[in-house]
Each structure stands twice: as C-alpha cells, then as structure tokens.
C-alpha cells in the first residue's frame, strides 16, 4: 500500500462519479486561468523589462471593456461551478427512498455502527454492493465527521441530534473510514474500514454473526423494561399519546404548532418530554436523560417505527406502503 503515486482517489460510489466530473471542470477552469496569468506575467516581465535607467513609459489607460470582460467571464464560469456543484450537493443530501438504513454512533474515539437486523460493528461497516445505504448518525460526546473518501461522502456527526448521509457503492472492496472533524487526543485513531460486499456474500455475513436480536425487538424489550408500554401502548385515552402509527406523522402540540414525528422528535420526547407536549395531554412524563444511551435511543426509535408499519400497510394501498419502508 505504501507505493503508488495517484492523483485521483478510488471512485467507488455513484456520487464519486458525479463529483469527479465537477472536479474535472474545476481543474480545466483553474488550469486555464493560472496558465493565462502566469504566461502573461512572464511574457510582460520579459518583453517590457527595463532596458535603460530613465526609460519613458506610455501610460495605458484603464479600459471599461476589459474590466467588464474580466468581471463577467469569470463570473459566468463560476456560475457553472455553482449550479453543477449545487446539483451534486442536492443529490448528496437526498437519500433515495429505497436506501437501507444503518445507524452510526460516534464517540471519542470510535465508530459504532448498527444494522437493523441487529449486527453491531466497531470501526467497521459492511454493506452490500449496488444498494443505497442511508446513515443516520449521532454522537455521544463531541462533534465528529463521518468521512469515506472513496465515496466522496462526509457529514458531521453531532451530539444531541441526528444527521444523515448516504452512498450507493458501485465497486466491491475495502475503503477508508475517517473521522474528519477534530475530536480530541486520538482523533487520528478514529478510523476504520467500509467493506462493500457482493450481495450474496453480504447476506452470508449478516447471517454469520452472533444471533443477535434486531434493533426493533431490542427496542421493544427496552420499551417494556422502562415502563413505556404501560402508558404509550394503552388505548385508554387521557394519560399519554398512543404511539402506534405515530412515526412519520404530523403531531399537534399544546403550543398549537405541528411537528413531524421523526427520529429527532422521538429522541427529544424521551430525553426532554416537556419540550414538545402533544396537544390534549399533561406534561407528566419524566425525563429519561442519563437513563438511556444513544444506542438504546436508536433501538427505541426503530421499535416505534415498527409500530407504525401494520397501520400504514392497512390504510394506504400496498404499493405506497412498500415505498415507505425504511430498510
């Protein structure tokens, strides 16, 4: 691995292909302007070098045409960069609906990844070839940044909120995973590998691990243990909202606002229940801050998501329900 002088990194995702096209355009524009400026400076410096001590110089007066040309032309070329770059950026920020979900928890100084099927990994992530992967990420302490150069994907991982990133691997292999946001003493040790495997091989890998329970069933256990089920699965009205079918739906709050019951909302409602109280209910739920870990929270979220499914499948046509699935 020590040898090999390369100028472009491995191109292992669809995004990488799209971004490298932008890069080539940027390089052409940069090469054109730097060559132009260097050549002109060199040419003028030689051609108009001082030949006599008291040389007379004819003043060339500023030309409006020239000023307009060298303002407008670079500006237009930059607008191409802007639009093209924004286009790739929007692609990067919108995971496809059929992406498989993987959870990432960063902490000083390791990456913990969790598959919905229950497999947990440390500083590694195994994914199947050719299938978009959506990462839902959070941090237990400081800000980290999940960076996979071969996929041209990077996104900050923050404490107290969920961020997402996604990639569609197009080449099997083993790729670097780095933490890109400085996070303390062993920042440069917070690295790992992404394994992109043939789908069949990936299935074998999934099955081969220790027979763990899925995230959702782990969440169900917590839901029972922590006493959430006593109240939040009850059909009796009054005490607290029933969570069946709640995920992804709008929720009316006591303040009159409406929020979407997404990952961040569920997380906040567990840790800081008084922040957003559902309309028609009292602010009586205790905070679970310090009682559940980030990983517990992810399991609970997956469980609450799974509660949503039967109802969704029942109500809308089957085709739509399939698209809504998050795995």
């Amino acid at each position: 691995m020590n040898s090999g002088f390369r100028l472009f990194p491995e191109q292992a995702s669809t995004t990488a292909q799209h971004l490298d096209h932008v890069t080539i355009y940027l390089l052409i524009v940069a090469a054109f302007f730097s060559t132009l400026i260097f050549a002109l400076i060199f040419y003028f410096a030689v051609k108009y070098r001082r030949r006599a001590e008291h040389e007379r110089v004819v003043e060339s007066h500023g030309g409006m045409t020239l000023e307009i040309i060298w303002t407008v032309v670079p500006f237009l070329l930059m607008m191409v960069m802007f639009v093209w770059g924004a286009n790739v950026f929007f692609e990067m920020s919108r995971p496809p609906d059929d992406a498989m979900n993987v959870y990432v928890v960063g902490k000083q100084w390791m990456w913990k990844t969790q598959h919905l099927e229950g497999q947990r990994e440390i500083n590694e992530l195994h994914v199947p070839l050719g299938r978009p992967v959506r990462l839902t990420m959070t941090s237990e302490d400081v800000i980290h940044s999940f960076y996979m150069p071969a996929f041209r994907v990077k996104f900050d991982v923050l404490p107290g909120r969920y961020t997402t990133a996604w990639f569609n691997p197009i080449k099997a292999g083993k790729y670097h995973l780095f933490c890109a946001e400085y996070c303390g003493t062993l920042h440069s040790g917070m690295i790992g590998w992404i394994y992109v495997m043939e789908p069949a091989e990936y299935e074998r890998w999934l099955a081969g691990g220790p027979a763990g329970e899925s995230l959702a069933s782990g969440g169900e256990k917590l839901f029972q243990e922590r006493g959430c089920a006593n109240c939040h699965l009850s059909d009796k009205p009054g005490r607290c909202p029933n969570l069946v079918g709640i995920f992804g739906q709008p929720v009316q709050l006591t303040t009159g606002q409406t929020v979407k019951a997404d990952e961040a909302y569920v997380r906040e409602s567990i840790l800081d229940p008084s922040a957003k109280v559902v309309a028609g209910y009292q602010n009586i739920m205790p905070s679970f801050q310090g009682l559940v870990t980030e990983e517990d929270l992810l399991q609970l979220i997956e469980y609450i998501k799974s509660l949503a499914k039967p109802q969704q499948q029942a109500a809308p046509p089957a085709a739509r329900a399939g698209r809504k699935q998050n795995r």
Partner: protein
Amino acid sequence: MITAIAPTRDNYLTHEYGIKSWLFTQDHKRIALLYLGAISFFFFLGGVFATIIRLELLTPPGDLVSAQTYNKLFSLHGIFMIFLFMIPSIPATLGNFLVPMMIGCKDLAFPKLNLLSWYIFMAGGALVMYAMLVGGVDTGWTFYTPFSTSYANTYVILTATGIFITGFSSILTGLNFIVTIHRMRAPGLTWFRLPLFIWSMYATSVIQVLGTPVIAVTLLLVAVERGFHIGIFDPNLGGDPVLFQHLFWFYSHPAVYIMVLPGMGVISEVISVYSRKKVFGYKFVAFSSVAIAVLSFLVWGHHMFVSSQSVYASLVFSFLSFLVAVPSAIKVFNWTATLYKGSISYDTPMLYAFGFIGLFTIGGLTGTFLATLGFDVHVTDTYFVVAHFHYIMVGGTMMAYLGGLHYWWPKITGRMYPEGWAKLSALVVFLGFNLTFFPQFIMGYLGMPRRYHAYPPEFQIYHVLSTAGASVLAVGYVIPAIYFIWSMRYGKFAPDNPWGATGLEWQTTSPPPPENFEITPVVGYDAYDYSILEEMKVG
C-alpha cells in the same frame, strides 16, 4: 565599503535613545518597529511548531511526539500564526509606519491609543505564551464546541482570554486608521489620489472594527460555558454546538480578508513602482477592496456545508462565496495589465509581487473549488483546505509582507538590504512554498484528513514532499532574517527615494524625521503619476 554619506539630519531612530524612549514612544514609526519585533518573535515560535509538525508527519505512525503533544502543536501553530502574527502583520507594522506617511501627516490620529494598542497586544500575547508554557491548548485555533467547552483538558480559558485581549488591539488599530484616513490627509490628497495601500488598509480597518467584537463575544461565551457550565453550545447543557460555528466564522471568515487585503495593498504599490506605471484600473482595484470588505461578512456559512446547516442556507452561502471571488479576480487582472508596456525591473520586492500574484491566483481558484457545494463536502477538513488557505495566507500575505518589508526597508532603517541575497531568498521561498503545499492539494483530494497525528501509509509520499518543501521554505525565511539584521548595521545607506516612487513617504528623508515631513506636503497629482518625478527634478 560604505560609499554613501551617513545621514546627518535628525531622524526618528536617532532622535532619542534608551529603552524608555522606545517603550513610551508615541511615534507611529517606532510603534511599528515595536510590533515588528513582537510579531517576528511570534512568527518564529509558530514556525518552530510547524517544523515539529512536519517532522512528525514524515512517517505514517505517530512516532516523534505523542498524540496530545501533536494536537497542541497544531493548535498553537494556528493560534500564534493567525492571532499573533498574520492579523497584526502588515497593518500593525507596515500600516502603522506608512499610513501617516503616505497621507502626509505627522502621526496617527490617536498616538497614545496606538501605543496602548501595542501594550494590549503584548498583554494578550503574554497570556497566550503563559498558557502555552503551563500546558498549552489542544482545541485547534478554531475552538469548536462542545469539545472546547466540555471535553478538552487543556488551558482553553487562559488561551481564549489572551486572544480576547489581542482583539482589542486590533479594534483600536482599525479605529485609529479609519479616523486618520478620514481626517488627516494632506491638502489636495483626495480619496481617488490615495495610494491603493491606503484603500486596502481602510477596508481592513472596517473589518477589524466590525468583526473583532464578534470573536471576542464568542470566546467569552466559550469561557462562560466552560467555567460556569451555563448551557450555550453543549447540547448536554441545553446548548447548540453549531451556533458556535456560526459565531466563530462570522468573524473568522472576514479575518481571512483582514490578513489578505493589506497584502493586496502592498502588491498594488510594488507592481506600480517597478513597472513605472499607474496601476491599471485604479478605481476598480480600490473599490474591489471595499467590495471584499462588505461581502466578506456574508459568506461565513461556506465553512459549514457539512455541519448540518440547512441545505438552502448552504446554497446561498455558496453563491455569495462565488461573488466574493469576483473582486479578487478583478485585482489579479488589473495587476497583470499594469505590467503591459511598463518598464519592469526585477528588484526583490517585484519578485515577491510576481510570486504573490501566482500563488494568490492558485489560492483564489482553489477557493472557488471550495465554494462549489458538492466539491467542498469531499475536501472540507482535509489537506486540500490546508493547502488552499496556506496558498492565500503564506503564498499571498506572507509573500506580500516580505515584499513590502524589502520595499520599505530603506525608508524604515535608512539602509539597503543586500540585493543578491534577497533575490536568492525570494526564489527559495517561492520554490519551498510550492513544494510544501502543492502536494497537500493532491493528498487532500485523495482523502487525507487534517489534524491527523498518524495516517495511512499511502499518503506518505506526499507528506515527504511536503516536509522537504518546508525545510527549503525555512531556509528561505532564515536568510532574510539574517541579512535584515546585518543590514541595520552594515547595509549601504539608502537614498531618500531609491526606487523612484511617487508616494509621499519617499519625498522625505530615509529614515524620516520624527515628525515625518519638514513641511506638510501639498498634493496636486494622482497616485503613481511617475511624470511628476521629472517635474520635481526640474523644479
């Protein structure tokens, strides 16, 4: 052999002697030299940190210093180079010396405030030094939260307080310049007759006065959260970590222009005098400085494309970042056009100016790369960014600072520097710089993250090139340090106007008298009107 005759007239250096005459001086020229001494010392320390960093990175494993020491080294390198060297560099030394001289007045508007600024700067610097000596800081110069407020075990509050204090020096210097430029210009010296260096100092001062209070408040908030656990940035205390980044970059992006605008001013002066031509498109160059100062406040979010800021905010910041590139491009084209049909000589300052234009062009173009949204996602927080800002700050500002020091050295000290050595060192700096930082663009795009103590072996080749370049660069900086000191005693005596320049600072003696001009000059011509020199000789 010294052939020129030693100046017999009273000058600001010989007017008074003794340590007190320096420490209590209100002469802007002496204060400029006090700053020069201080920032040279801080630059030396910053350079020592950089040297150890480059040596550590020669091999993939972290084997020279511990991870914690490495983190402190890059933090201190950034803090010393940015807050204690780059920000005061050109404004506090050349600016202090030249602003009153270029506009034909005796001193800055508030001489005592000027001396106070130096003492404030030294107090802040001393505090940062003290923090370094008792254990240092490992947050990077960026102090990102919640790492800096809740997790770092180093001297964050002490260091931040030091930087907080130096900020007041920056604000007061900016204020002093703004008032001086408005109120104290010589008769006849209208705004559009001002040297472009003054325009760029003016734009810089505006940013210093408007931007610095924000970083001061931000660092104060960091200290409050760290010291009293009042939740501002740490989500565990109910804060918002991204809020810190907004506040920090609201100052720190404009600060890039505090660092580079003065350099652009120097280049305008140098290009003109060694081409013996008016700067092409004077008004465009002047107003582009103002445009940069205004736009610089509207682009901070381009540091935060992957921070979880809204994608639409990112879209706006990307667009505005392209806009701020336009005035910089205008400057580069106008400087190049100034050379056309000029009478070009290759004196050392001109070599630095050529270097500046070339390196700033690369720095600026790669800046547009980083303004491109998708591209930035891949390379932010990698060595690509490190290379980019070193091209702007070291390739740009540092080249301009060195060029400016050479250009005005005869005026400042009354002595000439040795031209041969100076040309050699300019070449060494240029080559060393490119060898150090160009490979970093490549390794950044390949994915090498910044602030890594150890790294995967496939990046080694680029780090070896970079370290080799850094050794060359170090030689390029040591040579001028030696001959500048040497020339103060042994250099040839400088004539009043060795370069045939038109600026008012060249119409007085070298070194200038304490009050700068024996008679207040009256200005009846535009900046860079070289025909005036012939008339003066005749008159």
